Structures are given as structure tokens and as C-alpha cells.
């Protein structure tokens, strides 16, 4: 009797020793700050005064009533996220299919497309800023192509395309690797059977490869979604929000309100809206995509 009681307590004690460190660290990094965020979102506060003024839901009303900065940034982020998710996944699947064939240079090619992913996004932004501002001059002179004479960071529409293109350039290698792994789990005999049944390459791709790639697509879209909604670093170093404030994302807008305009309470309210949006969109995405997956 005493012995079993002792054993139960020892097990509980051990459970605590193993799990408490991680719970404390996660609480410090996420839950405590998150609770404070909820509290601050209902205050008017400049970040300096000792007593933030409680204003209830006023910040949220103000944001939805007509904060053009926020709605512009939201629109930019939605456009960016949709295009980024579609383009990066389509390109990565195409490239993965090509690189899944037995070529002599396969390992070089995989490494080459992966390299930009190991660089920090801020640095990637600066490198491309240099290329758009200085490199395109020289390229224009030597090739005579008009495409290099356009102001890629100075015109609103083109600046958007530049940000999108640079982000895709940096991260495509990561998605490529996920899809190559997915392709390797597609059984060869299914493809052979389809070939015997007279299916051409395109038919084989759409009827066999693509459906069996569904788990990779789910994980890639999830990653692309969560990353693109939070886009910040590359904009900071590439356009700084310009020209004329047309390339602010929601994350950048929050950063600007809290750290540059000292609207702590107001910026925090925006941050909470961003969290709810991310939560809703990812839950919808995961349930929809999981339902469509098939087992190999």
C-alpha cells in the first residue's frame, strides 16, 4: 500500500521535472506576453507613462471604423499571401518533378536552389536592393533590354512584384526539398501501371502524382501561409514600405505603430486582430486540406 503510493508520487514528481522547464520557458516567451497583449489592447498608452488608460474596445472600433493604414496594409498582405502561396508551390512542384528524374547534376541542382534559403531575409533584401538600383543599370546597358530600365522599387505595382519575387527566390528551395521528399514516397509501380494502361506523362502527373503529393502540399501551404501573413524583414530592407507607403504589410504596420509612433495600446490591438486572423485562416486551411488527402 505505502509502496504503491510512493511509486505514484515518484512518477508525478518525475513528470513535473521533465515537463516544467519547457512549460516555464513557453509561458515566459508566449503566454505571459500574450496575456499582457490582451490587456494592453484595451488601453490608450504611449509606452512611457506608468498608468495606461483603460478604454475598453475603443481601439478595435477605431481600427475597423476607418484606419486606412490598416486596411491598406491588410489588402497588401492578402494579395501578397495569396500570390506567394500559389506561385511558390506551383513552381516548387514543377521544379521538384524535374529534379526527381535521375540526372547527373541532381545533387548540385538541389543545393543551388536551396542556398538562398540559408541567408537571412534582411540581407537578401539588401542584396536585391543593390541589384535593382545598381545592377540593373549595368545589365540594361550591356543587354539593351527595356526591362532593366524600369524603376523596380520606385513604382508601386513594380515594388509589389519585386517584394514577391525576392521572397519567392529566397524560399523556393525549402519547398522544393519538401516536394522532392514527397515525390520519393510515390510508388513507382503505380506510375508504371498507368503507363501500361496508356496514360501519357501529363495524365500520369495529374491523376497519380499530384493526389499522392497531398500531404506535402498540406504542409507546404501551411508553411507558406503562416510565413507570408507575417512578411516583414524583406520589406524593411528592400523598400522600407515605399514608394509612398504602398508596401506596408500588417506586420510592418504593427511595428510602425508600436515602435515608431509610440501608439502602444493601438498597435497591440492590431496585433491581436492579426493573431485571430492567422488562427482562423490556418484552422480552415488545415481542415480543408486534410480532408482532401489520400493514402498511398
Amino acid at each position, binding site marked *: 500500500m505505502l509502496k504503491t503510493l510512493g511509486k505514484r508520487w515518484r512518477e508525478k514528481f518525475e*513528470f513535473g521535472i521533465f*515537463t516544467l522547464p519547457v512549460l516555464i520557458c513557453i509561458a515566459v516567451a508566449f*503566454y505571459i506576453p500574450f496575456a499582457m497583449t490582451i490587456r494592453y489592447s484595451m488601453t490608450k498608452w504611449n509606452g512611457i507613462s506608468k498608468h495606461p488608460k483603460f478604454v475598453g474596445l475603443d481601439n478595435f472600433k477605431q481600427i475597423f471604423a476607418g484606419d486606412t493604414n490598416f486596411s491598406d496594409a491588410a489588402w497588401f498582405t492578402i494579395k501578397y499571401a495569396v500570390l506567394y502561396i500559389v506561385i511558390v508551390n506551383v513552381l516548387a512542384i514543377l521544379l521538384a518533378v524535374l529534379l526527381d528524374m535521375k*540526372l547527373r547534376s541532381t545533387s548540385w541542382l538541389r543545393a543551388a536552389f536551396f542556398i538562398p534559403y540559408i541567408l*537571412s531575409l534582411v540581407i537578401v533584401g539588401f542584396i536585391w536592393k543593390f541589384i535593382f538600383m545598381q545592377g540593373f543599370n549595368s545589365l540594361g546597358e550591356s543587354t539593351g533590354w527595356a526591362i532593366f530600365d524600369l524603376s523596380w522599387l520606385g513604382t508601386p505595382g513594380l515594388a509589389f512584384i519585386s517584394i514577391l519575387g525576392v521572397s519567392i527566390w529566397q524560399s523556393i528551395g525549402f519547398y522544393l526539398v519538401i516536394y522532392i*521528399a514527397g515525390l520519393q514516397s510515390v510508388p513507382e509501380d503505380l506510375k508504371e501501371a498507368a503507363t501500361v494502361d496508356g496514360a501519357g506523362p501529363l495524365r500520369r502527373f495529374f491523376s497519380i502524382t499530384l493526389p499522392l503529393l497531398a500531404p506535402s502540399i498540406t504542409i507546404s501551404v501551411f508553411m507558406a501561409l503562416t510565413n507570408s501573413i507575417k512578411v516583414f524583414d524583406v520589406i524593411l530592407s528592400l523598400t522600407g514600405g515605399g514608394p509612398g507607403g504602398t508596401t506596408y504589410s500588417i506586420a510592418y504596420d504593427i511595428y510602425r505603430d*508600436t515602435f515608431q509612433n509610440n501608439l502602444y495600446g493601438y498597435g497591440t490591438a492590431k496585433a491581436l486582430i492579426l493573431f485571430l486572423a492567422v488562427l482562423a485562416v490556418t484552422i480552415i486551411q488545415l481542415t480543408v486540406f486534410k480532408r482532401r488527402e489520400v493514402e498511398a
Partner: protein
Amino acid sequence: MTTNHNKAGKIILEVILVLLSLLFLYPLFLTIINSLKSFGEVMTDVIALPQKLTFSNYAYVWEFINYPRLFLNNFIITGVGLLGIVFISSIAAYKLARTKTRWSGVLYFLCIMPMLIPFQSIMLTVLQTAKNLNLSESTWGLGLLYWGFGAPLAVFIYHGFVKGIPTEIDESATIDGASGFRLFFSVIFPLLKSVTTTIVIIDVMWIWNDFLLPLLMVNGSPETKTLTLAAYTFVGQYTSDWQYAMTAMVMAVLPSIVVFIFLQKYIVKGVVAGAVKG
């Protein structure tokens, strides 16, 4: 006949792909050659190769940003962060996966939920919490803070992996007299080697290159800055001196490129294991 036709097609395709990959890496090539040019040369022609290799840009930037110091900072932050993440996440994920109670389910959910919280939503209050705990403006403090930020993904990946290890292994080790940490470190942890590699790789690339958290936490003094932060402020001050800016870029990314070249095989395998498992 058809096989010959196929072979030719394959070679053409391969040539196209190799050319495409070179074009893909061309921006990095431009960065490197311009870091070896003088100011005048960068201004007159960006795409030309340097007339003679000048390493004076490197000497200048090395001195100006105090490169050894920043390198050490990055090293400490990444090292402290990594060791902690691996340790606290692996033991917790193991216990949570092995204990089948309602509590362990709830705690597991609490551990992985933060993956959905965008950092921008909490960055201000993270900064305040760090100040209250005396963790800000210190490289060690920043490293410690990464424990909490890296843990959710690490717990998630470890948890999935531990479930695949048969419980008989635990039982036989217990009969042999090992329990608690002894059991975990001499029996279970070695079995987690491949997934630990995955986590180490993902987290090294993330912490080494991270920008926003260091910007908020350790940007105050040159003693605590990181390489990416230094490159950021340096370029801000020297927007027209592109030769120095490009040199700073190369110097900030060089360590990760070197690591990549040595660990290339494991990195691609590691990302695959992490992503597909997850």
C-alpha cells in the same frame, strides 16, 4: 530509336536546368564580385569582374563593425539557444508522449499552440517581460529567451518521433534498473539522433539569421549586437558606399554558407525529415 531520342531530351533538359540554377545564383555572384571592387569600379560597372582583387573592403568592415566580437555574440546566442531548446524539448516531449492522461494531452496542446501566434502580435510585451526578468541587453539573456521560442516546434517534432519508439525499450531498461534521466539519456536520447539533427539545423539557421528579436533585445550597445543587426545598421549609414555594404553582406552570411557546404547532405535530409514528419 526512342531511347536515343529520350537520352538527347534528357541531356538538353539537364543543360537547361544547370543554366537556370546558375542564373538563380547570379545575384549572389554579383554580391561577391562587388565586395572585391573599389568604389569607382562599383559605380561604373556592376556586372564586370573586378580588375584586381582588393581585400581592403574586408579589412575596413572587419575593423568597423568589430567582426570578431559580433561573431562571438552570434555564436553564444545560437549555442545557448540550441542547447536549451534540445534539452528541455526532448525531455518534455518524451514524458508527454509516454504518459497517457488527460493532463498530458492538455499540456502537449499548450506546448505546440504558440506556433500559431505571430511574433508581431506579442513583440512589445515579450520585450517588457524580458526586461522584468533582466534578460534584455545581454547576449546570454537573448539565448535564454530562444528556449521558449524554439520549444513549440521542437516539442512537436520530438513528440511525433517518440511515439514511434516501442515502449518495450523503456520497460526493459527499467527492469535493468535505469529510470528517470538515466533511462532517457542513455537509452532514448541516442535513438532520437536523426530528429535532433533536424532540429539543430532548422534552429541554427533561424537563430543565427534572426532579425526582429535581436533588434528589439540587444540593439542598444555595440557590445551585444549580432551580425545581421550590424549589417542592417551599417548599410543604413553607408547607403551610397555599396562596396562596403556588399562586403558586410558577404561577411554576415559567410559563416552560414560554410556550415551549409559542410553539412549539405544532412541539411537537405534534415529539412525533409522535419517537414514531412511534422
